[in-house]
């Protein structure tokens, strides 16, 4: 048993405090509709969606309100029955103003969801399944928000033998995937079957960390009649939820540098994504809501809440109650999540959690020393890079050697190096800047 465990992991990584006890035992609760919902047309990677409604038009909950703007794009659906008030610019989480549909829900409406005819997925062609998934508007719900159907279209010349369900949720504080796995295990298994069929995979493995035994149990029970789907518990370690780490941990395969998981016969989907596919696809429904963990010492009623997409952040925080001393709001987990600069942003498909910290909870960076070459970052980097050397090169603004000789572009910014650095060097922060500069230079010279 121990031998089995030891094999199923990746090398390096860190063990930050998980802080999950705040919300991991709390059932998913529903948040009411806000007075106004703002549906950003670009809340996924790829081309923005195109609005197909006009101001003043009445819509029914679940009705398409925007169509996909291309293959790498998804449609949007009305998160509530109500009236379109305007189509205007709205700030997104990064502070940029992008087009959005403003919707005023009818308070007295029944809020029944509009959905289509039942589809028999078992007998659908792979192409039809991909189209059906695009129609639901599902994107990667683990945070990346990459349109899911694009991953289902396997590149020519490659074949996928294994679909991995990613239930690791290795970021501290977050428990959305955990609760979805406990409460919607059947949907996950069903979604896994749909995806396996679409990509033609022989087996499906749901990988999750062993600090969620209740989720392991519920998934195992849900998959008991599925001989091709199994559940794999993995030793808890950050950043196991990264596609590359999880593929290594479960199958001992390495996704080649700069390549896609399909090159090693693998497709990885977040469990919440699988759950939505499993739930929405059979009745041709659109994605209109998601589960978000709202947590942190600054929240009065932390929990896992399901809420309409487009719900303004201020409404969410007012509803759960926040401390007066709040001074930092992080979107997602504390290892990779960005900090919000404004409250005037709506919920999008890729938000996994909202972490609220008070002034006293914020890690104050200590004195920055020169690198003492302790090697902690090298032992932590899951990509086996040399952050110590990269950091010195970044200080010297030697960007070319960083990418050419020291593989900077393979860094996926998990933050392990900065977390462990005893000299308080902001390593991953420097790498982000360096990557930006390198990309800019490449674009200019191209």
């Amino acid at each position, binding site marked *: 048993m121990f031998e089995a465990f030891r094999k199923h992991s990746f090398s390096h990584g860190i063990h930050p405090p998980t802080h999950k006890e705040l919300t991991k035992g709390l059932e998913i609760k529903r948040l009411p509709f806000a007075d106004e919902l703002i549906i950003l047309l670009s809340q996924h990677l790829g081309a923005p969606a195109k609005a197909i409604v006009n101001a003043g038009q009445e819509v029914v909950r679940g009705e398409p309100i925007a169509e996909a703007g291309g293959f790498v794009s998804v449609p949007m659906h009305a998160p509530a029955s109500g009236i379109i008030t305007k189509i205007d610019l709205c700030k997104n989480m990064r502070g940029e103003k992008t087009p959005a549909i403003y919707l005023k829900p009818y308070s007295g409406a029944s809020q029944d969801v509009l959905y289509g005819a039942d589809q028999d997925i078992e007998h659908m062609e792979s192409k039809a399944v991909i189209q059906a998934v695009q129609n639901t508007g599902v994107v990667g719900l683990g945070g990346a928000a990459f349109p899911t159907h694009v991953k289902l279209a396997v590149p020519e010349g490659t074949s996928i033998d294994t679909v991995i369900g990613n239930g690791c949720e290795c970021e501290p504080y977050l428990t959305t995937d955990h609760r979805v796995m406990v409460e919607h295990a059947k949907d996950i298994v069903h979604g896994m079957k749909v995806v396996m069929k679409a990509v033609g995979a022989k087996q499906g493995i749901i990988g999750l960390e062993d600090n969620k035994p209740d989720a392991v149990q519920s998934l195992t029970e849900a998959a008991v009649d599925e001989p091709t789907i199994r559940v794999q518990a993995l030793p808890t370690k950050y950043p196991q939820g990264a596609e590359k780490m999880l593929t290594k941990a479960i199958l001992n395969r390495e996704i080649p*540098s700069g390549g896609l998981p399909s090159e090693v016969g693998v497709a990885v989907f977040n469990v919440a994504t699988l759950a939505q596919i499993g739930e929405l696809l059979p009745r041709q429904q659109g994605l209109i809501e998601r589960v978000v963990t709202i947590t942190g010492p600054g929240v009065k009623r932390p929990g896992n809440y399901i809420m309409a997409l487009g719900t303004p952040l201020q409404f969410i925080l007012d509803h759960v109650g926040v401390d007066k001393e709040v001074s*930092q709001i992080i979107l997602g987990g504390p290892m990779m999540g960005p*900090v919000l600069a404004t409250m005037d942003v709506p919920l999008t498909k890729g938000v996994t959690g909202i972490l609220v910290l008070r002034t006293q909870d914020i890690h104050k960076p200590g004195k920055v020393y020169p690198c003492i070459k302790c090697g902690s970052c090298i032992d932590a980097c899951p990509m086996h890079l040399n952050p110590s050397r990269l950091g010195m090169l970044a200080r010297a603004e030697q960007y070319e050697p960083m990418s050419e000789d020291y593989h900077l572009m*393979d860094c996926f910014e998990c933050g392990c190096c900065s*977390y462990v650095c005893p000299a308080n060097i902001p390593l991953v922060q420097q790498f982000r800047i360096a990557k930006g500069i390198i990309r800019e230079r490449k674009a200019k010279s191209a």
Partner: protein
Amino acid sequence: MSMRGNIMELRTSPHLHGQKTVESIMLNVVWALLPVCAYSVYAFGLSALALIVTCTLVCLLTEHLACKWSGKDTSINDYSAIITGILLALTLPPAFPLWMGAVGAFLSITLGKLLFGGIGFNVFNPALVARAFLQAAFPVAITTWTPACYVGRFSGFAPSTLTFPFTTPRPVTDWVAGLGVDGFSGATPLSLFKFGETPVVTDTMALITGNVAGSAGETSAILILLCGLYLIARKMMEWRIPAAMLGMAVLTSGAFYLYDNVSYPSPVFVLFSGGLMLGAMFMATDMVSSPVAPLGIWIYGALIGFITVIIRLLGGLPEGVMYAILLGNALSPLIDTFTQPRIYGARKKAKAEG
């Protein structure tokens, strides 16, 4: 709307940080060195105590004043100067004149550390830079040994300890003879073996417990080993360095011993004599002057272990740890360059550029 008036702090992720800091690592090294110091004082008395205190204070003072004069904040609160001072004292003969120790301490900080840019930039272990200087400048004083655990070591200093600054210490032979220590020849186990008419092998138990002549803090191998293991357990020391260094020393000396077990000492003797243990645990493991990647660390450690034994067995000196480590320090940037870790998902060959 409760927080409209609050100041929101904007930082980039990660928003968490681990417990280890430069200060905590350095402080733990100091803790780990204290038992070694305590044993040194037990074995060699007030002279050793005065030497350790002098070297440490001069290191701190030098670093503090150098920072003040160059208009920077003092850097002595990172504890690294204390480590340098203690380590330097531990590598010197216990009755070493204090003024010479002070000169060494001054040089370790200035020449060994600040000249390169301070913490994080030194190429060599600062304490060993100073010791190499002292060995060249004061060849007699640095090979003048006094017996361990003699009676009266807590009631007075060895005569050479309080030598007037910038004068040569008087020989201690008469003083040592007056102590009435049986069979003390004024030589360390290593020189007894190397330069004795027939090689003398010191009892292994005496070597392990440290009841032998030698540098102030190098004699009790077992205590040094335990203190090093503490740091390894706290993950504040690179375990691969002592493992590679001691392992290679045993292998190399083992090969010589198998070839000729009369002229060459046994690996056990090699392992527990001289400064090998202190060097492996506390000198070669200086983070700044050793490689960072695992493969490079193995090479570095093994190289030092090998060179140490070669100097001891074939060279002109009885002890080779210091020069071996300094050589390893000098090579470590080169080793680093050639031992970059293989990255996750590395492609066999970089794609031909279009």
